[in-house]
C-alpha cells in the first residue's frame, strides 16, 4: 500500500538551532516527492519537488534531499518565521492524474 510517514509529529527549536524533518515513503515507481509549508488557517504553500535519489533543492534556510526511501528537510539556523507545519507528498502509483498521498505533517515551532 502506498504510504507517506513524517517524523517527528512536532519539533520545537530555539532560534538558530538547526535540525531535520523526515519523510519516508513506500510507493512503487516514485514520480516526484513534494514538500509544502502550511501556516495556520492557510492552504499549503509549495516549496520543492525532488525527482531522483541524490537530488537536493535549497531555498533560504531550507534544503530538501531525497534518497530511495526517504526525504529530509534540513532547516539551518531557523528563525521564528519558519514556524509552520511542513507536509510532504508523493503521487499515488498508477494512473496519470497526479493524485497525491500526503503525510500528516511535522509542526515546527521556533522560539526566539
Amino acid at each position: 500500500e502506498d504510504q507517506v510517514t513524517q517524523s517527528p509529529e512536532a519539533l520545537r527549536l530555539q532560534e538558530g538551532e538547526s535540525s531535520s524533518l523526515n519523510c519516508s515513503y513506500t510507493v512503487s515507481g516514485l514520480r516526484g516527492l513534494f514538500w509544502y509549508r502550511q501556516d495556520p488557517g492557510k492552504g499549503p504553500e509549495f516549496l520543492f519537488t525532488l525527482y531522483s535519489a541524490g537530488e537536493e533543492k535549497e531555498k533560504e534556510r531550507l534544503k530538501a534531499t531525497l534518497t530511495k526511501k526517504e526525504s529530509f528537510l534540513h532547516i539551518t539556523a531557523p528563525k521564528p518565521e519558519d514556524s509552520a507545519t511542513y507536509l510532504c507528498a508523493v503521487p499515488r502509483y498508477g494512473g496519470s492524474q497526479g493524485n497525491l498521498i500526503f503525510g500528516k505533517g511535522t509542526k515546527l515551532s521556533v522560539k526566539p
Partner: protein
Amino acid sequence: DAGITQSPRHKVTETGTPVTLRCHQTENHRYMYWYRQDPGHGLRLIHYSYGVKDTDKGEVSDGYSVSRSKTEDFLLTLESATSSQTSVYFCAIRSTSGSTNEQFFGPGTRLTVL
C-alpha cells in the same frame, strides 16, 4: 499565487442540509482537486477533475459529488451534510507546464456541520 479562490471561506450549516463549495481558477489549468484536512489524518483527496465534465473519485468520496461545467470552476456538493463532514476543504490545481507536476492550493473553506 496560482489564482485560486474558494467560496465561501467559512460556513456553518445544519445536519441534513445541502452545501456547495466553489473553487475558481483564473489560469486555465486542466486538473483540479478537492481535499479535506482533518487533525490526525492530513490531507485526503475527495474528488478530482481532469477536464470539463471529466471527474473521478478520490479516497474519501462517499457523501460528496462534484461538477465541472467550465474550466475555471470546480464545485463540491454535500447532498446532505453530516457532522463527520465538518472539516477544512482545500481546492488545488496541478501545473503541467514543463516537466513538473506540482499542485497549488487555494486558501480553504472551513465548514462546520451542527
